[in-house]
């Protein structure tokens, strides 16, 4: 892996929605120092970070009614997101809107992968569920291998 690589864990402090942050924290120690690993609750922050990188991996919670902890993978541009509407607000710019915006500004890295982890409880200010927490090492191991730095 030679291209400048950015890994971003997205999440919020609400239950299993923390998973992007938690996996990113483990990856910080697993990945080489030249890979930049960041965490954010605000997808719009990607607009500040993306221009400096050629490869980007985004890790976020998702809910596709699969088994808790199941890892999904999408390569951008992904057809699954094509029908999502463009609802642009600085209070609520979604991950997909931020990527579309970056694409139109021509600051999107050539290689963007979105990793979705199936989550359950997202109760306000709750901790990560124990069941999902147990899967963090495995998820981080898988992602480290996929990112190419295991």
């Amino acid at each position, binding site marked *: 892996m030679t291209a400048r690589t950015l890994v971003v864990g997205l999440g919020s402090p609400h239950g299993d929605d923390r998973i992007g942050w938690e996996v990113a924290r483990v990856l910080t120690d697993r990945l080489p120092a030249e890979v930049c690993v960041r965490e954010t*609750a*605000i997808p719009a922050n990607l607009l*500040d970070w993306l221009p400096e990188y050629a490869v980007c991996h985004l890790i976020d919670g998702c809910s596709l009614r699969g088994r808790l902890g199941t890892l999904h993978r999408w390569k951008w541009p992904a057809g699954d997101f094509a029908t999502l509407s*463009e609802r*642009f607000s600085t*209070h609520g710019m979604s991950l997909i809107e931020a990527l*579309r915006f970056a694409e*139109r*500004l021509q*600051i999107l890295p050539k290689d963007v992968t979105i990793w979705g982890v199936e989550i359950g409880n997202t109760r306000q200010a709750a901790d990560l569920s124990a069941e999902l927490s147990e899967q963090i090492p495995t998820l981080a191991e898988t992602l480290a291998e996929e990112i190419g730095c295991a």
Partner: protein
Amino acid sequence: MTSSERKIRVEALTRVEGEGGLYVRLRGNVVEEVRLDIYEPPRLFESLLRGRNLNEVPDITARICGICPIAYQMSSVHAIEAALEIDPGEEIRRLRRLLYCGEWIESHTLHIHLLHAPDFFGYPSGLAMAADHPTELKRGLRLKKHGNELLELFGGRAIHPINVAVGGFYRLPETTAVARLIAEFEWGLQAAQDAARWVASFEFDDLEQPYEMVSLVHPDEYPMNEGEIHSSAGLRLAANKFEQHFSECQVPHSTALHCLRSDTQSSYLVGPLSRLNLNRERLAPEARAIADELITDWPCANPQRSIVARALEVVHAYSEALAILREYRRPRVARVEPVPMLAAGAAATEAPRGLLYHHYEIDQSGAIASATIVPPTSQNQAQIEADLRALVQSIVDQPESEIERRCEHLVRSYDPCISCSTHFLRLSVERAQ
């Protein structure tokens, strides 16, 4: 609805911070009612602060807004320091101005490029505009990033910073970390001037209004943290006398209070346009030169041209930030420790959107006994409605879609922060006998 009655309703304004709508009722060619409906739920921050230790106040008030948290922190620490008679000293004072520069850069460039500029080109959003104007928007995002970097360095993080303390800062960055920003800010100073020329080239409707403009005025500097409250109608008062001359009132259609001049019950204007008109001669030299180049008809009282005022303030913020960054040496003392006592104090600072007033009563133990916060969007609400009324009356024969578009554009000219303004709740209790 009678045959001559027309209603225009915008259920949800887009490209504003927070949730609000707009309602206009016409009868024939007469505007009967105009309302800026703010239905975002009350935030209740003044009540939340009661009983909390005074040292918690800047962290709690920073949560009022994700775009302008520094303004809330600054007004709160100045008010509490005024109460406790604390003087943090000149070094801290300059670093607070530096932090405020970061917020002005971040907030203003966001509004200019993503929220307001699309109106002048007919795009529904910044996203829609991006493909056709990538150079300008990329420049805007890079400027915004600089603002965020200042907030991260001196505030601890860009959103809801945690490093501002009563008496100073909890920790100050190393000189080397600050020096790393200088090259980017030198680029930013030039880019901000280019951005100002770009926005000044937009086509503006003729919307000049007879505003009473209100802003802080400081004898030696463009106002941010300190100064007297002045108005274009001749008002002059110390910031802690705000509540004697301005009063908040409830209106049925809004969860935010309206603030009016107490003596005349009239609306007034706060924000970059007022600041610029009342303080033009105190702009940094680069900003003053470009202000004179781009605006030749002073006072500038067209709300749409507030985008130019914002761009000029970004130039000023870069110039002042650069001067402070270049001279930065990490102070030996970051904070004067506050000593609690029974006291009261008030202060006003200039948030990106205008004058932000805080007043606190503190008890013997250092707990907050009462808090009053008057944000700029509350102060501008009545003026926005007055402007809308005048605008609609002037275009009353236009199709509804055009009236709606023009009204939304006008509201966005103010960069209203609706989330900040909603901290009011009326509670009615009826007890059965």
